């Protein structure tokens, strides 16, 4: 061993492809299982929410405009880069929240990587499975295709810190949505490490934006934002979810939350093409047939 002092990482929010502190200048301490300080996380503000939504909005058309093949390759690239930093993720998961063994953390990390791979493969297939030709009673071509809803506001569950976040995020962005994610309030650090991975994986800036802070403060501006098209409130308790849903109603924003089966994070029931569909619109095209 040497006496060398470790260089600690500063965990910042991820907005529009950049790592930034809050415009509010605030932070909050994140503690490990023994109460020790792991790091200070950014305590994001309403304005940070607005900046993140703006970044997501402006990135959305470009991301949806990529070919499905390209989006699939980029999601697969996320898995590749996560795999190369597997030890780092595992160590971070192990000391987050109540803590767990390194082996359990490594399993969670591996499952998160595999989930990216699984959804990467859906990029150029979900339209085939969820869409299709409709045999209408007349001389018309009629085709339905799923299209991304737009900007999705997401609230990640507190624990476990990594797998639920990936399980909810991957099906949202694979179709061409962009996301504003509130990381786990209690275990936000690994979400920022995930953001670093995304930044290195050819995911375009603004496609995923990750905020840290207090849910009670950040969910209302996210839920009420007119540029947010859909909400995943999986990480909200019942009361906060109900409040958010009431706000979302004003802008006809659809609200989604993980089902009990989907909350079995390590199981296959937590992944589904219908979860991709939950954040899509169905567009139907009619065209006459005739000489």
């Amino acid at each position, binding site marked *: 061993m040497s006496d060398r002092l470790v260089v600690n990482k500063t965990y910042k929010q991820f907005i529009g492809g950049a790592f930034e502190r809050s415009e509010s200048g605030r932070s909050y301490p994140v503690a490990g299982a023994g109460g020790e300080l792991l790091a200070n996380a950014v305590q994001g503000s309403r304005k940070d929410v607005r900046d993140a939504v703006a970044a997501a909005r402006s990135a959305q058309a470009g991301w949806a405009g990529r070919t*499905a*093949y390209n989006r*699939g*390759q980029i999601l*697969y690239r996320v898995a590749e880069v996560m795999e190369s930093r597997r030890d780092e993720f595992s160590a971070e998961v192990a000391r987050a929240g109540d803590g767990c063994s390194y082996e359990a953390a490594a399993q969670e990390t591996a499952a998160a990587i*595999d989930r990216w*791979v*699984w959804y*990467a*493969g*859906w*990029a*150029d*297939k979900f339209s*085939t*499975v969820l869409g299709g030709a409709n045999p209408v009673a007349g*001389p018309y*071509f009629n085709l339905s295709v799923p299209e991304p809803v737009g900007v999705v506001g997401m609230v990640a569950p507190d624990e476990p810190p990594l797998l639920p976040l990936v399980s909810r995020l991957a099906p949202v962005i694979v179709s061409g949505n962009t996301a504003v994610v509130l990381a786990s309030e209690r275990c936000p650090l690994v979400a920022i490490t995930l953001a670093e991975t995304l930044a290195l994986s050819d995911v375009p800036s603004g496609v995923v934006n990750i905020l840290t802070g207090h849910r009670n403060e950040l969910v209302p501006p996210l839920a009420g934002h007119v540029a947010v098209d859909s909400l995943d409130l999986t990480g909200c308790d019942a009361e906060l979810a109900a409040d958010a849903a009431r706000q979302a109603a004003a802008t006809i924003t659809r609200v989604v939350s993980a089902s009990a089966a989907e909350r079995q994070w390590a199981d296959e029931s937590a992944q589904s*093409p219908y979860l991709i569909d939950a954040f899509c619109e169905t567009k139907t095209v009619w*065209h*006459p*047939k*005739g*000489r």
Partner: protein
Amino acid sequence: MTDRLSTGGEVAPTGDFSLEYAPAPESTAPVRLASQYGLFLGGEMVESASGRLAPTINPATGEALAEVSVADAADVDRAVAAARAAWEGGWRDLPGAERAKYLYRVARLLQERAREFAVLETMDGGKPIRESRDLDIPLAAAHFFYYAGWADKLDYAFSGRRAAPLGVAAQVIPWNFPLLMAAWKLAPALACGNAVVLKPAPTTPLTALLLAEVLRDAELPPGVVNIVTGDDAAGAALVAHPGVDKVAFTGSTEVGRAIGAEVAGTGKRLTLELGGKAANIVFDDAALDQVTEGIVNGIYFNGGQVCCAGSRLLVQETVADTVVGKLQRRMDTLRVGDPLDNNTDIGAINSQAQLDRISELVASGVAEGAELYTPQCVLPERGFFHPPALFTNVSTAHRIAQEEIFGPVLSVLTFRTAEEAVAKANNTPYGLSAGIWTEKGSRILWMADRMQAGVVWANTFNRFDPASPFGGYRESGYGREGGRAGLLPYVELVA
């Protein structure tokens, strides 16, 4: 030549000015050829039982690139046994998510070595480097990537049923898109959990053998894919082998018929992707400059050695002269020659035998009274080359309107009404593809409904994508490759 420009004096009058391109040859440095190649059996390159070798020829020079093993029945037997052992020894029971990871690795390794594969494909097969670089190799990688994603999603491809693998698939592929056809065959078969014995075409074995390296680097379990090179006898032995559960063939209708007869009564599953004589149908309202490019791409892409080539142009009478005139002017600018040159549009014909067949059919067209147009172009002194050719005054009874030429030869026919276009388009035993050119969307869809063809391109031609099914009606075969439909030939659906 460029004398006129270099003197800096007179400006060339319009129409009397031709652009000459300096040679832009692609380097062959990325390719490391061995002098001899064995068979890929059980994860190892091994000698054939007989030790027989045959040269594989660079069709642009006529010179041998390497000697490749000629498998016989004993080798085929070993290959099928290796595939069976790998399948029963674990491949069939591997979770889909793990099969997916192998296929993703193959896709990535192909992407990484794309340049090497492209140059080798062009050296061994004669197609322009621009095509192997921009189409064959990237599409092959994309195909592996696409089917990797299905490997762990088969439950969603066939809702209500479980998809079980068939066992050992025998796959016999042609020489016109060697690596791409290997990918079309291997990717869905492996995604569905089958083991494979692949038989490349005799004239183009080298990229399949290079793919064996990739499969090994991907750590694919030994025996899951076996590659036997050889002549038609090796293919026949493979198809007839009792240890094979599924046969997939791409090639001529004549051989497809023989394979169908061979497989009959054995219980083996069979899919066939055979010949074609596609109609490219041009209506008078079409955007004629785009049409010209589309027709040229349709017939001269890969020198017309494409089963879905748009080899019959059906053009509405009122615009026939205009279209033919535009075509002839465009043909004058096509560059025929060294396939490794980045400026080349039409490379070498794959073999002397194929060149002879093309020449024979072109001679029959002239003899039967059709009018031949070929641009004045200087063909290389060695190697197998054919200039782009266009026939007018073609009747539907002419051999050049009925038989698949598989070369850069276009037959032009005319029509007056949409009904007549439909009748003429469908007037062949084939049914692989069709092209429709019109600005009227409703007419595209009306025509598409009436085409006896597995793929219909509208205002485009020769588009391929892993997500899009490909395959023919009638004597162009049965079964589909690509898309969700491409999984079905490789699974048994059980409750």
